């Protein structure tokens, strides 16, 4: 299966391809064009240019009712005047499926989403989580070629949201159906997806597996939108292979990964250090770059403690550490050595910024 389009609806060009059985997420801040992209795929919007291909067939101008795509909307869009059964049966009725088959398939699908026995209730009588499951059942019962999900978890409370993530991912894997998921929540995107497409201002910023996006952000926007990060401006002093040496204005010198090998001596870059890869040590470690610093802030989140430290040369850095005795002892004012375990060099030009 293949979908590809470039649209200009204040969006695009965007090229997205979903493979069979793949869970793809469109991730981005509000207004980045992710819902528009989903609507184009579903046929709810026709792009001014570009194509939507389904298994090689051009469906760009095909009306949504002929596309066989299951869509779950942000507010679920359950028909409030129809019972749960009628909601789930709707797509089957439109396909003129025999009555007995409809009853059987609706019951099976409600069983599958873990909601048996609510057939005769109206959507207004269900909880948010139940409504979400009905919406998923209604989209899946027509055995669509692809499942499209428009921020389906954003209206649930935090605990439920976490559970539904896993349930939804489970269901998608069991059915082996391709899915496009739209969200602004990076945790959601990472936990659920095989691949993530990061959108910004109607354009693709970067796409790849969650690991690729986290480890090798292509731009400053990607680095800052996904996870926490420390960015230090610098200039490449020496380049060679997958490693570059970067000098920073505070007099620092970092050996940074630059996997694409495109950086040259003299390029303006950011040194990117993820907070969990910045260690805080009481003693100066041997054989590794370490910056003398003082803790300025301590943010306790239960499992993780995030520290803000200021190096003696004036850099403000964040470090997140497990909540164990060694780190619990650190408080604002504590003297530490900030140890850079691993850092990346990120080109500074054309980075979009945030």
């Amino acid at each position: 299966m293949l979908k590809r389009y470039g649209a200009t609806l204040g969006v695009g060009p965007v090229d997205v391809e979903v493979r069979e059985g793949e869970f793809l997420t469109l991730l981005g801040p509000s207004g980045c064009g992710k819902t528009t992209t989903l609507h184009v795929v579903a046929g709810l919007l026709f792009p001014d240019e570009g194509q939507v291909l389904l298994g090689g067939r051009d469906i760009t101008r095909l009306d949504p009712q002929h596309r066989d795509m299951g869509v779950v909307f942000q507010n679920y869009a359950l028909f409030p005047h129809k019972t749960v059964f009628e909601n789930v049966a709707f797509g089957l009725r439109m396909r003129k499926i025999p009555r007995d088959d409809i009853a059987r398939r609706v019951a099976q699908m409600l069983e599958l989403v873990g909601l048996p026995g609510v057939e005769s209730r109206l959507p207004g009588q269900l909880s948010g989580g139940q409504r979400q499951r009905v919406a998923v059942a209604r989209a899946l019962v027509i055995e669509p070629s692809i499942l499209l999900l428009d921020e389906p978890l954003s209206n649930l409370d935090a605990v439920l949201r976490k559970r539904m993530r896993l349930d939804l991912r489970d269901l998608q894997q069991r059915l082996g159906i391709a899915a496009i998921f739209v969200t602004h929540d990076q945790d959601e995107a990472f936990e659920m997806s095989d691949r993530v497409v990061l959108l910004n201002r109607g354009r693709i910023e970067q796409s790849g597996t969650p690991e690729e996006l986290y480890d090798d952000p292509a731009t400053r926007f990607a680095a800052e939108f996904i996870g926490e990060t420390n960015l230090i401006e610098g200039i490449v002093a020496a380049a060679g292979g997958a490693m570059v040496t970067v000098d920073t204005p505070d007099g620092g010198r970092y050996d940074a990964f630059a996997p694409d090998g495109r950086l040259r001596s003299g390029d303006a870059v950011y040194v990117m250090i993820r907070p969990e890869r910045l260690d805080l040590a009481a003693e100066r470690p041997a054989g590794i770059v370490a910056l003398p610093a003082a803790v300025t802030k301590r943010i306790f989140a239960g499992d993780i403690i995030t520290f803000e430290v200021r190096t003696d040369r004036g850099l403000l850095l964040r470090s997140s550490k497990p909540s164990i005795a060694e780190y619990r002892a650190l408080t604002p004012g504590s003297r530490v050595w900030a140890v850079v375990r691993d850092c990346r060099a990120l080109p500074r030009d054309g980075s979009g910024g945030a």
Partner: protein
Amino acid sequence: MTEAAGRFGRLLLAPIGLLYLIALLAPISFFLVMSVFRYSALDLWVPTVTGENFRRLLGEPYHRAIIVRTLKIALFTTVGCLALGYPLAWYLARTRSAWRGVLLFLVIAPLMTGVIVRTYGWIVLLGSEGTVNSLLRGLGLIDRPLKILHTELAVLIALVHILLPYMVFPLFSALAGQDPDLERAAHTLGASRARTFLEVTLPLSQPGIFMGSALVFTLTAGAVVTPALMGGKDVRMLGQTIYELTMSTLNWPLASAVAFVLVLCQLGILLLYFGSGRRAA
């Protein structure tokens, strides 16, 4: 709501409650009582209880015809407003055009001119020397002017036009309040535009249909000026009948009986509306 807020709320409702008491309950009780009094040419009425007024009203073909005609015109006006108003309300609710505000204003604008002005407008258009007849004759389609004015059709046309805003607004708010994703969802599930309308849009606009219909029906049934001007002596309705019985014939007991029947019809429609409204909710 807290107890204090409840008490405060009731206090705020006091003026309107007083107004209703004086302007609605008092006259209704007045004509309820009057409708069973005996008519007297000398004293206007004598306070002896009689069923004669209702017997005349429901027994005499002349009066029965007026009741039937009133209900018929009210029904047709309601259907006419619904047929013309629904597409308009739907368009207004769905359009993204920058003109939406202007169009909404144009829908209300007629309410700002008086009923009489608009009715005279229709007389100019529909009279035997009116615009419509002149045009048809000029085109050679007819030899003698058509009699449009002073027919039920004329009353109907004018009432539909005048009462259209009362239909459009409830429909508009019912349609505009619908989540646009509902129609999208129906499409993605395989429903054509027509099916989506019948299965989703129409049933969900039901409260607006009931509200608009109840408004238009009760306003038509009680209309006085427009039927009088457009229908003349030939198309008599309950409103005019009450007016004439009260002001010229001075048969107040019979007038009260007519008013009683009219209010009963309107109340029936309103009960039907609220009954179905509660079922829908």
